[in-house]
């Protein structure tokens, strides 16, 4: 360590107790010895979110949130602004990858049974983070003001009309009028850049604080001592026989973060139009709904459900119930066994739900 670095370190040490701060958060913080790569997916989501923040700020510099200029400003970002295409591609591909990472994270947590007590709140905050991530995707989708984004938003903002009494009011509130117009665009822009980010950060802080406070779950499968003892008092899971967070888990997380970048740049380099169907390059036309309009892959299953369920109220109510079941799952599944291999019914339900989702996505894509 050279003189300047040492002086800076000493300066910080006497003011904030740097050594103790690093020790307690990196080397003294123990993680379970059987930790695996699936435990890094939360950190991958944080990396993904940071990429969205940085690229989003870059796009803000050139984007114009006005119905007359939005499409053109996005085209100029793609074609005229130096490396504008790179930041937009990173933002678009990143949004899809982030949703995929959050989804896989939730699925692995489910499979390992780590939503069970005492981690119910961690699961709920994670579920809400996933909902906000989807809201980011939905609100950001309108901003380029393309045919696809215009009509996808028309459909989505019509959904509340399925509910009597308040439905029309909510729909008008979202749109800022009776149909999707420039007013809707500015509303969605405000939500995307100023309402959702602080909400997301707040929930992320709560989520990470809960993980640190309760301690990482030790057992991917089988019942841990936490589940065996009666839950009458708070006891932090310390893992005295585990590994230090640094270097073991932090290096795994860094590796997976790099892998996330690799996948992102593979898509940008070899499939740059993968997330840009033809309608996503045509400016919004309020007089013509395109022949083939489909939402992004992560909304395909609910989209197809709406298509096949003949009653609008029933179709949308069913989706809200499914979302509530997903978020409050820890309170519905109170079985003490964490190992999904010893729970044939739950395993069967999980497989059926996954297959149904894949079929609905494939069907919706056709």
């Amino acid at each position, binding site marked *: 360590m050279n003189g300047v670095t040492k002086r800076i370190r000493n300066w910080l040490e006497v003011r904030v107790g740097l050594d103790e701060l690093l020790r307690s958060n990196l080397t003294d913080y123990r993680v379970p010895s059987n930790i695996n790569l699936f435990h890094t997916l939360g950190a991958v989501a944080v990396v993904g979110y940071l990429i969205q923040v940085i690229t989003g700020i870059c796009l803000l510099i050139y984007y114009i949130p006005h119905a007359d200029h939005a499409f053109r400003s996005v085209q100029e970002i793609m074609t005229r602004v130096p490396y504008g295409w790179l930041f937009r591609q990173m933002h678009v591909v990143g949004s899809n990858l982030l949703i995929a990472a959050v989804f896989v994270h939730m699925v692995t947590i489910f499979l390992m049974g780590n939503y069970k007590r005492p981690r119910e709140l961690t699961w709920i905050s994670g579920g809400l983070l996933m909902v906000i991530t989807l809201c980011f995707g939905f609100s950001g989708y309108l901003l380029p003001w393309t045919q696809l984004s215009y009509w996808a938003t028309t459909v989505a903002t019509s959904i509340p*009309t399925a509910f009597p009494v308040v439905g029309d009011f909510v729909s008008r*509130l979202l749109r*800022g009028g009776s149909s999707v117009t420039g007013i809707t665009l500015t509303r969605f822009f405000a939500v995307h850049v100023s309402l959702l980010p602080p909400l997301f950060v707040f929930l992320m802080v709560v989520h990470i604080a809960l993980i640190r406070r309760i301690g990482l779950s030790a057992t991917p499968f089988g019942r841990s001592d936490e589940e065996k003892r009666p839950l009458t008092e708070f006891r932090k899971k310390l893992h005295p026989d585990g590994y230090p967070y640094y270097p073991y888990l932090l290096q795994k997380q860094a590796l997976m973060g790099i892998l996330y970048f690799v996948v992102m740049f593979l898509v940008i380099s070899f499939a740059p139009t993968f997330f840009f169907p033809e309608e996503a390059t045509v400016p919004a036309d309020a007089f013509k*709904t*395109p022949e083939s309009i489909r939402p992004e892959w992560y909304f395909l299953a609910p989209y197809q459900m709406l298509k096949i369920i003949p009653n609008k109220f029933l*179709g949308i109510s069913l989706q809200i119930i499914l979302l509530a079941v997903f978020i409050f799952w820890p309170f519905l599944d109170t079985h003490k066994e964490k190992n999904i291999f010893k729970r044939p019914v739950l395993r069967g339900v999980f497989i059926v739900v996954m297959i149904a989702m894949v079929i609905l996505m494939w069907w919706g894509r056709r």
Partner: protein
Amino acid sequence: MRRRTFLQSLLAVFGTVSAASFAYPLLRFLAPPADADRDKKFTLAKKDIPIGTSRVVLVNDKPVIVIYEKGKGYIALSSVCTHLGCLVGYEAAKNILVCPCHGGTYDLEGNVLSGPPPRPLSKVPLKVENEQLVIG
């Protein structure tokens, strides 16, 4: 009443009133003003819609599909699908209206033939005056 209890109650009352007095203007600020009732007519030349074709026009800010069908003559219907708000298109070969979003179909009277739409398309008044179509 103890002084502390009184202060806590006062704080609760003032807090609730402050929150409510802010919530109402916020809701009004976000809610769009109601559309004014308008009965402006839209005029279209007959020659602009050849037989077996359709055209979408904006009547009082609402999209309306005007169809010229051989047997039924001129028809005007709201083109907003009653399911989730996409615009229906005229399929001349089958003489039906189709919503491209979720596949709902309607006949030329606006009645639902198939798919998820919960209600028929609303009819829009249309009059033929010489060489003009007056819609609305």
